[in-house]
């Protein structure tokens, strides 16, 4: 890749998804884009970038942007988060909503580990008498496809997932492990760019969006936060990553008009 190639990729990521990509990190860019270039039939990343530029083809551009977007790979990351959602947030929301269906949204679900962790926690101890809908979205189409399939490698199921949960929720395959249909079918999927208008999605009682904001440029972060805030039902919960929810980090959260609750992932003892 030439320096111009790297600048172009950084600029496309910023423009399409608000992603912060450092064009000086040549190895990282090359590493992420090489599989995409191969998949698309190009002999090198440079050829791929030139084609994306010259053809101005959205499909190629998005393939590059998706490859550069963050991908979380662990189940039950910061496990206290899930205890708090199931044990505290949902019972409280259920009381407030008086029997209405609760809508939960994992806004950047990656390859599914985050939202399936939530679904497994719900399957194990959902608040009684409460109907819950779980939505999941990601910027990356390929990761969404993997997530929907619910099949994970031996390496993936050993990151954050207990052996008890492995035997409870998965079936063994010749080469990997498949999540049970019971859990998979709890989740509905959609490709969503958090930078775009989200009003078509309706409102959610709880939005889980962890370790995303830190990868965004300042303007994009403010916009995504405003979008997520708009998607939150009154008294809803916005669950962010540990470092993302520090008081004062994002002034928009503290302003009087914010009608939800910000939860940090490790805020519980």
């Amino acid at each position: 890749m030439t320096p111009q190639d790297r600048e172009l990729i950084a600029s496309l990521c910023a423009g399409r998804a608000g992603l912060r990509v450092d064009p000086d990190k040549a190895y990282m860019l090359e590493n992420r884009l090489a599989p995409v270039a191969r998949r698309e039939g190009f002999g090198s990343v440079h050829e791929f970038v030139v084609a994306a530029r010259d053809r101005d083809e959205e499909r190629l551009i998005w393939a590059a942007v998706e490859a550069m977007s963050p991908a979380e790979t662990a189940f039950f990351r910061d496990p206290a988060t899930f205890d708090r959602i199931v044990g505290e947030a949902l019972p409280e929301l259920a009381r407030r909503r008086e029997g209405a269906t609760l809508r939960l949204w994992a806004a950047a679900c990656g390859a599914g580990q985050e939202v399936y962790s939530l679904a497994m926690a719900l399957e194990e101890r959902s608040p009684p008498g409460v109907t819950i809908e779980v939505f999941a979205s990601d910027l990356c189409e390929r990761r969404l496809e993997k997530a929907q399939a619910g099949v994970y490698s031996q390496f993936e199921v050993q990151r954050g997932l207990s052996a008890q949960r492995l035997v409870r929720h998965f079936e063994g395959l010749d080469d990997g492990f498949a999540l049970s249909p019971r859990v998979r079918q709890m989740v509905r999927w959609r490709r969503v760019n958090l930078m775009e208008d989200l009003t078509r999605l309706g409102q959610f009682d709880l939005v889980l969006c962890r370790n995303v904001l830190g990868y965004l440029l300042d303007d994009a972060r403010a916009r995504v936060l405003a979008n997520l805030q708009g998607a939150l039902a009154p008294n809803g919960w916005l669950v962010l990553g540990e470092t993302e929810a520090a008081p004062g980090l994002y002034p928009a959260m503290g302003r009087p008009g914010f009608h939800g609750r910000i939860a940090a992932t490790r805020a519980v003892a």
Partner: protein
Amino acid sequence: MVKESASAKLCLVVDDSRVVRKVARRILEDLAFEVAEAGDGVEALAWVRTAVPDVILLDWNMPVMNGLDFLRRLRAEPGGDKPKVVFCSVENDLDRIREALTCGADEYIMKPFDGDIVASKLALVGLL
């Protein structure tokens, strides 16, 4: 040889492969554990009768006494309920994992493993 430290947690690595023990030792020491080693279940049982480790990383298929037999014997010993036991085996059949859990294992690692997996499992049993 166990390194002396007042606060470090102790892990007994039980595996008949010297290579696996060496890899596990390096990972565990990076995670600030003290490490002791045993080559089979009999050796491991003798070891835990002298000092109870915080956690045992336990292979399944070993000569003399396999991991499952060791685990049953361990849990029947006085104080044998105390150490966390994390199986570490090439056995990756879910029925085998279920069997290990039923016999008293706290966690299970499928080989091959790396530092992330060991750290993840030790966190799950409350030792990290």
